[in-house]
C-alpha cells in the first residue's frame, strides 16, 4: 500500500494533519496549509484530497459531536488521524527527497 504514488499536495495535507495533532479538523488543516504554503487552498480540492488519501489508506477519520461549536448548526466535526501506512509513505518520500537534495546546497543556496 505504501508504494502508491503520493502527490505534493497530498504530502502537504498529511504533514499539516501531523502538525495539528489533536486539532486536526478540516477547517484547521486549510488554515494551516494557507499559513505555511502562503497560497489559497480550495475547499473542494481539499475535501477530495481527504477522500483520495483515505482510499489509499493513508488517513482515517472519526466524527465528533459538533454541537459545542455554535456556528456549525449542529453538524458533526471530522477529526483526522494519519495511519501507519500514511506515516510510512511520508517517510519514504522524505528519504527519497533527502537523497536527491544531497550535494545540491551550493547550487540551490540563495545567492
Amino acid at each position, binding site marked *: 500500500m505504501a508504494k502508491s504514488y503520493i502527490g505534493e499536495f497530498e504530502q502537504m495535507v498529511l504533514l499539516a494533519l501531523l502538525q495539528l495533532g489533536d486539532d486536526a479538523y478540516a477547517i484547521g488543516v486549510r488554515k494551516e496549509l494557507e499559513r505555511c504554503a502562503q497560497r489559497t487552498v480550495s475547499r*473542494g480540492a481539499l475535501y*477530495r484530497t481527504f477522500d483520495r488519501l483515505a482510499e489509499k489508506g493513508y488517513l482515517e477519520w472519526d466524527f465528533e459531536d459538533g454541537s459545542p461549536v455554535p456556528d456549525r*448548526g449542529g453538524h458533526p466535526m471530522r477529526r483526522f488521524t494519519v495511519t501507519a501506512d500514511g506515516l510510512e509513505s511520508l517517510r519514504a518520500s522524505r528519504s527519497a527527497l533527502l537523497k536527491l537534495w544531497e550535494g545540491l546546497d551550493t547550487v540551490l543556496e540563495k545567492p
Partner: protein
Amino acid sequence: MSASSPHGPQPPTLAEWVLSRCLPGGSLGRSVLGDLRQDYIETRDRRSATSAGLWYWGQTLAIGGRYIFAKLARKPRPTQRYRTSHVQAHSLTGSLLQDIRYAARSFVRSPGFTVVAVLTLALGIGANTAVFSVLNGVILKPLRYEEPDRLVRIFQVHARWTPDGGVVTGPAYLDYREMVEGFEDAAAMYYRQPGFTLTGRGLPRRVVTLRVTANYFDVYRIQPIVGRAFLSEEQTASARSVVLSYRLWMAISDGDRGILGEQITLDDQPFDVVGVMPEAFRDVVGGNVDLWSPLDIESVANTSRGDHYLNVVARLRPSVALAETQAQLDVVSARQAELYPRPHDGWTALAVPLHSDVVGNVGATLYILMGAAGLVLLIACVNVANLFLARNVTRERELSIRAALGSGRARLVQQLLTESVGIALLGGITGLALAYSGVRGLLALIPDSLPRAAEVSVDATLLLFAMGVTLLTTVLIGLAPAWRSADKNSGRSLQDVTRGDTGGVRTGYLRNLLVMGQVTLALLLLIGAGLLMKSFLELHRVDLGISPRHVTTFAIHLPESRYGEPWRRTEFHQVFRDRLESVPGVEAAGAASWLPVSGEYHDWGFRYVSPEGDVEWGGANFRIIEGDYFDVLHIDRLRGRAFSPSDAVDAAPVAIINEETARRYFTEGDPLNQEIPAEGRLRRIVGIVRDVAHDHRGNVAPKVYLPHAQLADNRNWVLTYVIATATPRTDLPEIARRELAAVDPDLVIHDVRPMDEVTAGAIARERFVLILMVVFAGVAAALAGAGIYGVLAYTVGQRTREIGIRMALGAQKRSVRWAVVRQAAGPVATGTVVGLLGALAASRVLESMLFQVGSRDLVTFIAVPTAMALVALIAGYVPARRASRIDPMEALRQE
C-alpha cells in the same frame, strides 16, 4: 438570501440544500456542511451578508461540482445500469442520478451541440440578467429609506408655467407644513446645490452643498452616524453648522470622529461640523451632495409668494392615503388663492409618491429594454429547442430501443428533461458570468441622467432572477421536444428509424413553426433597433448652433468673503481671462452663466410692446457672458457688434439678442438699437446672433445676452468658462489650474468637461437605449440565421440518401439547391409577415423615444425585412450548396 434564525445567521437555505444533495450522505456530508457553515459565518463577519451569500453559492458550485464529477467519473457497471434504468421498479432519485450521468456523458459525446446550446442560452440569460440589474436598481428596489411608501414629493403646478409641477415658494411650503394634516412632517431644500470652496484641508476643493430645513433628516428617517442633525434654532442666516457626507468625512479626515466640533473653512468662513451621515444615505431629490447646511427659515417665511425655489419632500402619517392628502393640499391651495389672489392665481399643489417622481419616465424606457432582452431569450430558447428536436430525431433509434425494452413514457420524458435542465443550468451559469461582466459594461454606459444609477449592482436578487430565468428556459426548451419524442407510440418500428429520414411530418411541422417564430421575434427587435438608429442619426444631424470642437469648459465660484464687491469679481474675470488667452495654443476664452444644450435657465423674460400696442410679458432666457463667448463656440453674429471691454459698468447698458427673440418680439421694425427692459434697466440692443439650441433636439428659445461687467452687481454669478484651442488639449484643465493659482491660490475650477461631452451628455440616454437595442437585434438576427441554418443543415444531412438518388436520376444541381432553400422560404416568409404586423402594432411603444421618425417609418419597414430576408437567404444557401455537392455514389453507399 440569508436569514437570521434563533441560531444566528445561516447560509442561503437553497444553496445549502443543493450542496447537501451533491455531497456523500451521512456524517461525512454533514461534517462538510458544518465546516462550510463555520466559514460562512466568518466570511459574513468579515464582509457583508450579501457577499457571504454569494461566496457560499460559489463554494456550493465548486465543492458540489467536484463531488458530482467524481461520481460521474466512476466507471459505470453496465449490467446494473440497465437493470435499474429500464426494467426494475426504481426510486426517483436513483433514476435521476442515472439520468444526470447519462446526460453528462451525452454532452461530452457531442461537444459541438453542447457548446452551441450553452452559449446560445448564455447570451439570452446574460442579456436578461444584465438589463434586469438596471431595472431592479432603478425601478423595482424600494427607495432606501424607512417606510419609503409614505414619502411624497410636493410640487406647485401652474397650467401655463409648470404644467408638470415645479418647485415651491417659501410661504407655500410653510402653509403646507402647517395645514396639511396628512403630513407627519415636510422638509424643504434649496432647489439647487450652489456649493462652497473648501480650503485648509489639503488642496482647495469644491464641495456640493445642499441647504435644508432642520427636519430634513427626520423626514427621510435617517440619522447621522456621528454627531447630530440640525437643531431648529440653527435655521438662521448666521448659522455656521454643517453635516458632512460620509464621502467628504473620509476624504478630509479619514473617518476621524474628532472632526466633530472642529471647524472647516468654506468660502473663507469657519463652519462647525455637527454630524456625519451614513455611507448609504443618498438623497434622491437633492442629489449627490458633500455636505448639508441649514436653510434660513426666516427668509423662507419672508420671501415673495412668487419666488419658487424649494424642493419639498413630505412623510405621510401612517395609513393616510395619498388621495386624502391631495384633497387637503387642494383645500390649502384654495385658501391661499383667497388670501393672496395675485401670486396664487392659477397655482395648485400636487403630491406625487417619491418613488414615481424619482423614476419618472425612465420606467418606460427600461421596460422596453427588458422586453427586448426577453425577446432575445425567447429566440435563444427557440433555437435550443430546435437543436434538441433535431438531435432527438437522430436519437429516435435509441429511444425506440429503450421504449421497446420497457421504458415508460414518463421515464423517457424524465431523461430528456434532465438533459435540458443540464443545458439550461450550464447556460445559466455562463449567462450569469456574462451578466456579471455585462453589468460592468452597462454601468459605464449608463447616462448620469439615469436616476439611482448608483444602486445598480450585481447582487443576490440578480442571482435569483437568473435562476428563475434559467428554470423558465428549461421548461421552454425541454418540454416541447420531450413531449414530442415521448408522444410517439413505441410501435413505430425499429426498422423505420434505422433508416435516415427527417423525423416525420409532425416534427418537420414543429421545426418550421420554430423557424417562423424566430423570424417574427427577430424582426420585431430589428425594426425597433432600426427606428431608434434612424432617430439617433437624426439627433446627430441636429444643428445645435455651436461648434463644440476643441472647447474645454469649467466653472469657477468666487467666495463672497473676498469677492463681495462687484468690481472685484469683474476684475478677477478680466485678469484670469487675459492670462488664459495668453497661453500658447488658446484661440479664444469666454464664460457664460449657463452652457448651451443644458436646458432652459434664467427664464426671466421681459416686457415688450406687442404689434397691437399692448404691453406683454415675453418669455426669454438670460445669459450673462464674459469675453469672447460667441467666438469660442462659433455662434455667428448676424448683425451689429459683440460686447467689448468698453461695455463696462459705467457705460450705457447693452444687450445682444438671438434670432428667435427678434422674430418673436420685434415683428415690426429693426430690433437693433431698440431698448428692452431687463433686470431693472433699459438696455440697448447692439447685436443679433444666431440661435443656439438649449436641448439635444435642437429646440431654441428667445435668448438675451448681457455683459457680465454690467451685471456683476446683480448677484455673484457662477460663470462657466469656455476655452477654444487650435488642437485637442487634455492638459488645458491643468494649465487653467496653474493660471488660477497665480491669480488666487484658494480658488478651484470644477465641473471640468470638454464641450463635446456636454453635447454628447444630452443624448446619453438615447445612446444607451440604442446601443442595447442594436446589440439585442444583432444577436437576435444572428440567432435566427443560425436557427434557419441549423434546421436546413440538419435536414440536408438527413436527406443525403434521398438527394443522392435524385441526383443519380439526373436532378440538376440548381434544382436541388432550390429545393433546399424553398424549404425555409415558407416559414421565413410567414414569419416576416407576422413580424411586420407585430411591429406595426408594437412600434408605438417607442414613439416617445423617436425624434423626427414616425413609429411606422416606411424606409425602416422596408429595409429591415429585406435585411432579414438576406440573412435567411445566406443561412439557407450554405446547406443548399452542400446538398448540391452530394456525390450520388457516396450517398447511395451509405445504405
